[in-house]
Each structure stands twice: as C-alpha cells, then as structure tokens.
C-alpha cells in the first residue's frame, strides 16, 4: 500500500514540478507580458495542484488534508484574480508596463 502511495506521490509531484519548470521557462522566454502571465498561471494552478494531490495520501489527519486542499484553492483564487488584475494593468499601460 505504501508503495502505491509512494509511486502515486512520485508521479503527481514530478508532474507538478514539471509545470513549475514550464512556468518559469515561460516567464523567462515568452515575448510579452500577457503571454508570460499565461505561463505563470499554469505553474500556480497545475503545478501546486499536482503537488498537493501527491501529498494528500501522506497527510496525517483529515484536517491536514482539508488544509492542503484549502491551500490549493486559495492559491488558485489568488492566481486567477491577480492574473486578471495584472493583465488589466498591463493593458491599461500598454505593452511597456
């Protein structure tokens, strides 16, 4: 059983880290602010989401698991709204912002 949990954890966390790498690469390589914002939100949503998924079976109590999910939900909310807000600020100022 613990082997299954470990394998699941390795797969999910590995995939999550991949999205972080992809997000950072996008932040570095994409040509304009709005595309970079697009890359960033992938790291927020999928990267942390998959890591939380991989850590969930290892949590010690139901409350700890609930907190993990809440952390992901909060980051999702923060990421989505800040992407919207920063994106609007970029548009308002033009591409130079």
């Amino acid at each position, binding site marked *: 059983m613990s082997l299954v949990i470990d394998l699941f954890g390795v797969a999910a966390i590995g995939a999550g880290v991949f999205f972080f790498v992809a997000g950072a690469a996008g*932040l570095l390589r994409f040509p304009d602010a709005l595309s970079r914002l697009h890359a960033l939100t992938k790291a927020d949503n999928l990267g*942390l989401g998959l890591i939380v998924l991989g850590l969930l079976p290892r949590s010690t109590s139901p409350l700890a698991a609930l907190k993990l999910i809440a952390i992901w939900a909060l980051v999702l909310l923060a990421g989505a709204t800040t992407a919207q807000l920063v994106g609007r600020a970029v548009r308002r100022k033009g591409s130079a912002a």
Partner: protein
Amino acid sequence: MTDFLLAMAGLILFTVAVGLARLLGGPGDADRMMAAQLIGTGGIASLLLIAAATGARGVEDVALGLALLAAFASVAFVNSAAPAEAPDSDAADGR
C-alpha cells in the same frame, strides 16, 4: 521518498530562483509582480514538500497563511498602479 520530496523542493526553489532573473530584468513592474507571484506559489509548494519530508509540526498553517496572503502584493501593486482620477477605461469595453 524523503530524499525525493527534498529534491523536488530543491528543484522548485531552483526554478523559482531562475524566475528571479525576470525580477531582475523586468522590463516592467508587472513582470516583477509576476515573478513575485511565481516565487510565492513555488515557496508554498516547497514549504509543503519540506514539511512532508522533515515532519515539522504545524507547517500547513504557515502554508495556509502564505496562500491567504499570496494575492496581497499584487493587489497593492494594482491598486497603486491605477491612480484615483483615471476611470477604469476597460471596465466598459470588452465585457
């Protein structure tokens, strides 16, 4: 497994450090806020991984606090970037 978790936390921190290059370079303040956002999320992720690996108690609460405040810097930035006298020009269009 512990080593794997720690290695992944380190990898995320390394990625985030590379993202710092954007913070250094800009070109705009919005890019700097994005870098801060990425580092915030990466910090939460590596915090959870380190906590799972070292078994420190109560770390979920720290991550929860960080997640709650993740949007704060960006919100302060957006609030200050939009001056009071400028009407929200694209609130009318595009929606």
